[in-house]
């Protein structure tokens, strides 16, 4: 028990020093959270920027945002199942199957784009519920159920695609997802609106706590965090809008597709929604509880089976959304995508972002952060003209590094009596 812990309980408004000590203690106890990924990201960006001056240019950052759309969306679903202390190996196959279903009905059957998308999302949820039922009610380990899914759904995808193996999708609404960007003004509006909303929620939380006489963080701490969020989002929008072309480290490029790419907006929206769902609702609370101790959750009267099925359905729903983004980017549904690699990259992203493989620890933001880390490495190696084999080796090494950090942090938690 530290002095900081004791004081956090007593004083109605905690001093900055106390908050700092409390944070330090949590780090020492192995609650590293997002810190390793943030430091890693900073190192990666510095490394590639030194080698390739166009790395942080508008054009390349725009590419990066497009590239992480699929991995990031899948990783959000992976975070949800990891929090449950389960795994879903099937997300890659589910996403390409949903993509094939969309292509089949829209291109071959002449369905309208919105019915096609509704069907693909429905197929995703149905697959998730089926797998969820199998692992939650029949009690086959999720590793095996979803490994079967990884193989099986890929087979179904090839059957749906038929003999050609590829269906081109040129439907304008579907194509628009990957080819459009948010108009520059909207981008600014999004950055300012999001920062204001973040500040509003945080400050209101603290004021309400103070109002009812509970301990609250000093507003300075909230203000600093808000300023960081606002600065970061404004900077990203400025780069993507091309306003910093040729300025400082943001190297000069000639062709710029101005504005925030639509897949980036979709991913951000999904992350914000699922972050809210996991931290502020009963469904999210139960997901963490089951991941921490399924028996404790059951004895507390939680319907563990129903929660597991729901979470796996959400994960597969996210996989189908990723399939939609993928279809739009490739302008096709194709057998050529390797679902195993897509799946494992998403799992790697979630873990690198700071979500524990051992359940109950982590958050949805780690999906975004991890996807940015993996995307930044892959993008940087491409820009550097490296061979695909180098990419695989480096990605593998980075994953190993971050899982090792998680394992050490876990040991730290146990040492401190946790």
């Amino acid at each position, binding site marked *: 028990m530290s002095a900081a812990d004791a004081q956090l*309980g007593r004083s109605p408004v905690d001093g900055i020093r106390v908050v700092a000590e409390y944070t330090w203690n949590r780090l020492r106890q192995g609650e590293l959270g997002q810190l390793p990924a943030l430091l890693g990201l900073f190192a990666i960006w510095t490394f590639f920027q030194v080698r390739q001056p166009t790395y942080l240019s508008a054009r390349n950052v725009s590419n990066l945002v497009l590239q992480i759309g699929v991995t990031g969306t899948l990783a959000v679903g992976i975070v949800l199942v990891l929090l449950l202390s389960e795994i879903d190996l099937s997300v890659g196959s589910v996403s390409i199957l949903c993509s094939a279903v969309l292509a089949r009905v829209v291109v071959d059957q002449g369905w309208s784009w919105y019915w096609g998308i509704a069907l693909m999302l429905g197929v995703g949820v149905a697959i998730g519920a089926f797998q969820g039922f199998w692992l939650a009610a029949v009690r086959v380990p999720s590793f095996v159920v979803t490994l079967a899914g990884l193989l099986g759904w890929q087979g179904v995808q090839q059957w749906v695609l038929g003999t050609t193996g590829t269906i081109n999708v040129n439907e304008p609404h579907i194509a628009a997802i990957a080819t459009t960007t948010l108009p520059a003004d909207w981008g600014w509006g999004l950055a300012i609106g999001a920062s204001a909303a973040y500040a509003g929620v945080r400050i209101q939380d603290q004021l309400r706590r103070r109002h009812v006489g*509970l301990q609250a963080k000093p507003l300075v701490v909230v203000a600093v965090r808000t300023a960081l969020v606002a600065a970061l989002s404004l900077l990203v929008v400025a780069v993507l809008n091309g306003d910093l072309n040729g300025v400082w480290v943001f190297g000069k490029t000639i062709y710029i597709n101005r504005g925030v790419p639509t897949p980036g907006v979709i991913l951000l929206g999904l992350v914000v929604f699922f972050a809210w769902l996991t931290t502020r609702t009963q469904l999210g*609370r139960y997901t963490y509880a089951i991941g921490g101790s399924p028996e*404790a959750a059951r*004895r507390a*009267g939680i319907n563990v089976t129903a929660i597991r099925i729901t979470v796996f359905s959400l994960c597969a729903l996210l996989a189908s959304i990723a399939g939609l983004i993928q279809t739009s980017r490739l302008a096709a549904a194709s057998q050529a995508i390797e679902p195993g690699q897509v799946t494992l990259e998403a799992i790697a992203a979630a873990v690198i972002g700071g979500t524990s493989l051992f359940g109950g620890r982590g958050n949805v933001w780690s999906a975004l952060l991890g996807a940015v880390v993996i995307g930044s490495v892959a993008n940087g190696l491409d820009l550097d003209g490296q061979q695909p084999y180098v990419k695989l080796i480096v990605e593998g090494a980075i994953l190993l590094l971050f899982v090792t950090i998680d394992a050490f942090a876990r040991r730290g938690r146990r040492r401190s009596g*946790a």
Partner: protein
Amino acid sequence: MYGGEVVALVGDNGAGKSTLIKCVSGAHLPDTGTILVDGAVAKIRVPSDATHLGIETVYQDLALCDNLDVVANMFLGREDTPLALLGPIEELAMEKRSLEVLDTLHVTTIPSVRQRVASLSGGQRQSVAISRAAMWKAKVVILDEPTAALGVAQTEQVLALIRRLRDRGLGVVVITHNLHEVFEIADRIVVLRLGRRVATFAHDGTSPEDVVAAITGARAQVES
């Protein structure tokens, strides 16, 4: 079982203590037999049935979620929310109520209710688990070996907490191996042996030897 008394349930390993409370708390389905609550036959199939009847259980392995904080654990499965599952959780009201409950039960050892349970000591965790059981208009609280893993000072804290529950009019069932503790807190002592009740003692006028004899079956005891 009456309100405002502490009953100690004792017996050798395998005597059926844990099985009995698991049946009463809804963790197991009994093969035979009936459970009476306020004179009426009660059907307890799942843990929430027991909860509705006012029976709360603190298990030997505590059944807390290490990765959640104290407030989340105290309200687990019973969060304040306008809409089940998808409604926002009323964290502030829950935090305030948790502080009040810990306060009324004089649990002063928990530094912050926003601390994860993982970082608490054994005695603190036991206090959280017992406070959680007591806060839901419980009539009966069942404690399975509440002091088994605790040191001397922490054991004293937990025993004091049990007395406070009794003083507030709750019925408390304590399962324990420790006869010293039994005589320290129990008003009534029930002995199980091989799945049957073999003896009931009042606290006064009973010696530890009588209880030991009943536990081991050294002496056939007539129901008192």
